[in-house]
C-alpha cells in the first residue's frame, strides 16, 4: 500500500507537469482502486459502481490543481471518493443505504479491481448535450487528440477559447454526470 502511494504519487506528479503517458497510467491505476473501494461500499448497488468510478475520475481530473504536493495522495483521493460516495447516497436518500460505514482511508490503495463493468450513463451522450463552444474543443482535442492549432483551424475558434472550452466543458460535463441541470 505504501508502495502504491509512492508509485501513484510519482505518476500524478509527472502528469501534473504535463507528462500525458504518466497521467494516463495514474488514472488507469486509480480507477482500479476506486472500483474496488466503491464496490465494497456499494454492495447493494453494484449497478452504481462504474458510474461512480467515472464521476470520480472526472472530478479528480477537474480538481487536480487542488492536490497539495506535500500531502499524502491517499488522503486527497480518499476525501474525494468519500465525498462522491456520500453525494451519491444523498441523491438516493430515503432508502436504507446509509448502513455502510464510511470509514478510514487505510484500505483505499490496498486492493484493486480492474474488472470494469458497463457504466449505466453514457458520458459521450452527455457530451453531445454540451454547447458547441465546449463540445467541439473536447471532441477534437480530447477524443481525437488534435493539437490546439489543429482544433483552432477546424473549428475557427481562437486558441484561448479552445483551452477555456476544454476546461469549462469538462466541468459542465461533470455537472451533467452528477445530474445537475
Amino acid at each position, binding site marked *: 500500500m505504501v508502495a502504491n502511494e509512492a508509485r501513484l504519487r510519482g505518476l500524478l506528479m509527472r502528469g501534473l507537469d*504535463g507528462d500525458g*503517458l504518466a497521467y494516463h497510467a495514474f488514472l488507469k491505476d486509480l480507477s482500479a482502486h476506486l472500483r474496488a473501494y466503491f464496490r465494497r461500499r456499494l454492495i447493494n448497488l453494484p449497478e452504481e459502481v462504474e458510474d461512480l468510478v*467515472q464521476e470520480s*475520475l472526472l472530478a479528480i481530473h477537474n480538481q487536480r*490543481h487542488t492536490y497539495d504536493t506535500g*500531502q*499524502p495522495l491517499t488522503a486527497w483521493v*480518499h476525501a474525494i471518493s468519500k465525498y462522491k460516495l456520500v453525494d451519491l447516497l444523498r441523491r438516493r436518500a430515503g432508502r436504507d443505504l446509509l448502513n455502510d460505514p464510511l470509514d478510514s482511508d487505510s484500505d483505499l490503495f490496498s486492493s484493486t479491481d480492474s474488472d470494469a463493468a*458497463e457504466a449505466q450513463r453514457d458520458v*459521450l451522450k452527455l457530451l453531445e448535450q454540451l454547447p458547441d463552444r465546449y463540445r467541439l474543443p473536447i471532441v477534437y482535442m480530447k477524443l481525437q487528440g488534435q493539437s490546439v492549432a489543429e482544433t483552432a483551424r477546424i473549428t475557427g475558434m481562437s486558441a484561448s477559447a479552445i483551452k477555456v472550452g476544454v476546461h469549462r466543458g469538462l466541468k459542465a460535463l461533470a455537472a451533467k454526470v452528477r445530474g445537475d441541470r
Partner: protein
Amino acid sequence: MKTDDLIAMLSTGSGAVEPHAVFRRYSTAIGWGALCAMLLMAMLLGVRHDLGQALSQPMFWVKVGFVISLAAASLYSVSRLSRPGSGLATAIVALAVPILFIWTVAAIALSNAVPTEREDLLFGRTWSSCPFLIATLSVPIFVALAWAMKGLAPTQLRLAGAIVGFAAGAIGAAVYALHCPEMGAPFLASWYLLGMLIPTAVGTLLGPRLFRW
C-alpha cells in the same frame, strides 16, 4: 463510454497544471473583495477623522492585530478546506488564539475599570450599528471568496461555507476598523465578533448549495 475511453479522453492533451492554483485564486479574490469593501466603506462611512492620532495608541494596534490575525487564520482555514483531505487542527488553533486573546484583554479591561465605565467599554457609542456594518462590508468579500472556493474542491460544504463567511467577516472588520472609532477591547470581543458571525451564519446556510461539485 467505457471507463478506459474516459481515461484516455481525460489524459489526452491534458498538459501541465499551473502550480499554486489555490493561492493564486484566493489572492485574486481577496484583492477584488477587499478593494470593493474599501470603496464601500469610503463611500458609505468614511475613514475616521482621527486616524492619524489613533495610530499612536496601543489599543488601535491591538484592534488591528485582532482583526488581521483572525483574517489570516480564517484564510488559512479556507485554503485548507479547499483541498480534499487536509487536516484542520492547525486551522482551529489559529482561529482560537486571537479570539481567546481578545476575550482575555476584554476581561482584564472590564475588571480593572470602575463599575461606571464598564458599560461604556462594552457598548461604546456604536454597538447597535457595528455588527451590521461589518456584515455589509463583508458582502463583496464573501462573493469573491465564494467564487474562489467554487473553483476548488471543498468536501465539507457546510463548514466551507461557514469559514468563507467568517473570513469575509474578518476582512470586512479589518476594513471597518479604518472607520470605527471604538477602542475598547470588550467592544471588539463582542460586537466585532458578532459582525463576523453574521456572514458566517449565511455561509453555513448557503455552503451546501454553493459549493457542490
